[in-house]
């Protein structure tokens, strides 16, 4: 009997997993012992960080979207279908089409989604770059902006110790905004205020979710005249008066509210009964070492859907994939997983339009802020426009 590996979700995590698995298990595939199937609810693949560049008129958007099939090795059977039910007892996932996909091993990689409606008024009064539609809207507003105030707010999940999508993105976009307005020659007419909530994972009353970066940010922001405010946990927004209210009892007016909205796991995960996260957020309980869903021996997960404290970022997934793939291959070959994830995250942050900052950390050690450089920015550009696709294809 052929062993079936089913991957749900065709984003960064699903695609990298599928191709790396196909590479690793090629001997078994050639012998007809293994079949890899991916279902995704979309036939396109989106490079999500590209939206930041769209917001600041540095890209149109189409550059970051590709046909999902074109990114998959031929050994991966790709089906466009939306998973609507996960039955971990009987080992199948049901699609919206009615098809039941049986599996021996399941990989859940459905990412997370924006849930702006969890903060009253945010949907109507706020803007974000976490989707292409949002980024395009924001780009239009920035193009029309002549003077006033841009307020940056950040939201964290209610479940403790879990980050929002891409931890560094609010800092990146604040610095990109500063450069963008400077390029346009209107920086002096616009006030930028960066705010951070009281509770952000391990840090309280800081400006970032890890202490070393939180400590140096005031100096960096001061040097570019970005005002900053700790302990501003967004509670509600009045879109009519363009006012943001915090849980701490403050209010702040804005012309544009550039926010990191609340995020939740995909609907199918939230409804699966597998999560114990607060407020129906749906994060999957994940073994931090093996990357198995806790309590399920043949179900793995990675990427934005996990409940780990590491950043929900591509630079995390790139490292998780190698562990997960080795573990599935080892289980098939020896009967037990052999690799262990150490929480490693490697990325290059876009600190302004011309500066890239390499960053790395793991479960044990926080990010150590390093100087950004022009060369770093070029590497980041190379990743955005080319290396990402090679990485997704399992070539890197």
């Amino acid at each position, binding site marked *: 009997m052929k062993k079936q590996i089913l991957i749900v979700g065709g984003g960064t995590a699903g695609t990298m997993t599928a191709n790396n698995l196909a590479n690793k298990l090629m001997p078994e595939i*050639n012998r007809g012992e293994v079949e890899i199937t991916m279902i995704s609810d979309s036939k396109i693949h989106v490079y999500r960080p590209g939206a930041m560049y769209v917001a600041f008129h540095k890209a149109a958007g189409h550059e970051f979207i590709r046909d999902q099939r*074109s990114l998959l*090795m*031929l*050994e991966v059977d790709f089906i466009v279908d939306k998973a609507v039910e996960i039955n971990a007892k009987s080992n199948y996932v049901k699609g919206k089409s009615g098809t039941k996909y049986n599996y021996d091993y399941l990989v859940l990689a459905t990412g997370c989604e924006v849930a702006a409606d969890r903060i009253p008024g945010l949907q109507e009064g706020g803007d974000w770059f976490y989707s292409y539609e949002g980024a395009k809207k924001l780009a239009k507003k920035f193009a029309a902006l002549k003077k006033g105030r841009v307020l940056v707010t950040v939201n964290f999940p209610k479940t403790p110790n879990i980050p929002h999508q891409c931890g560094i993105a609010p800092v990146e976009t604040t610095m990109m905004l500063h450069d963008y307005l400077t390029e346009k020659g209107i920086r002096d007419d616009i006030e930028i205020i960066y705010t951070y909530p009281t509770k952000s994972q391990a840090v309280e009353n800081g400006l970032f979710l890890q202490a070393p970066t939180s400590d140096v940010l005031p100096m960096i922001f001061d040097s570019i005249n970005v005002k900053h405010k700790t302990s501003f946990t967004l509670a509600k927004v009045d879109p009519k008066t363009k006012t943001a209210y915090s849980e701490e009892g403050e209010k702040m007016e804005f012309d544009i509210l550039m926010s990191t909205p609340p995020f939740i796991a995909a609907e199918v995960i939230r409804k699966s009964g597998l999560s114990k996260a607060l407020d129906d957020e749906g994060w999957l309980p994940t073994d931090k070492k093996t990357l198995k869903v806790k309590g399920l021996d043949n179900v793995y997960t990675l990427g934005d859907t996990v409940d780990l404290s590491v950043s929900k970022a591509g630079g995390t997934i790139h490292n998780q994939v190698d562990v997960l793939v080795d573990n599935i291959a080892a289980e098939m070959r020896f009967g037990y997983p052999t690799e262990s994830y150490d929480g490693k995250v490697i990325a290059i942050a876009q600190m302004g339009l*011309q500066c890239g900052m390499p960053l790395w950390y793991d479960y044990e050690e926080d990010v150590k802020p390093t100087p950004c450089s*022009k*060369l770093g*920015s*070029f590497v980041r*550009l*190379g990743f955005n*426009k*080319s*290396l990402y*696709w*090679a990485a997704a*294809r399992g*070539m890197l």
Partner: protein
Amino acid sequence: MSEVIQTKKSAEMQEIEDKMTMLVQTGRIDNLIDLLAVVSDQIEMTTTPIVEKMVHSIDNIATAGFVTENAVRYAKRESAKNEIPSLFGMLKLLKDEDTRKGLAFMLNLTKGIGKQM
């Protein structure tokens, strides 16, 4: 004076000094400075559009490599699995939509090459 400096020097500083001394004594430091200057100039003179065009070309090559590698692996597996097709078998293969898609692509590719000759 020099004694004070000596005592304040960390082990790392001492190691750097030893290594640099060797480079200075053997004259190789000049080459390294030249190299650093070249690298630095390259970075200085490179612009975002140049990098964009370069990475576009790299992406094209990687994509072509990925498509070709996939196709070759597939063809090898299918050829190993099946007998050499008869004339009738060839026609059956031609009836397959993917074969026709690939063939049409190859013919258009040939046409594209022809247009440049």
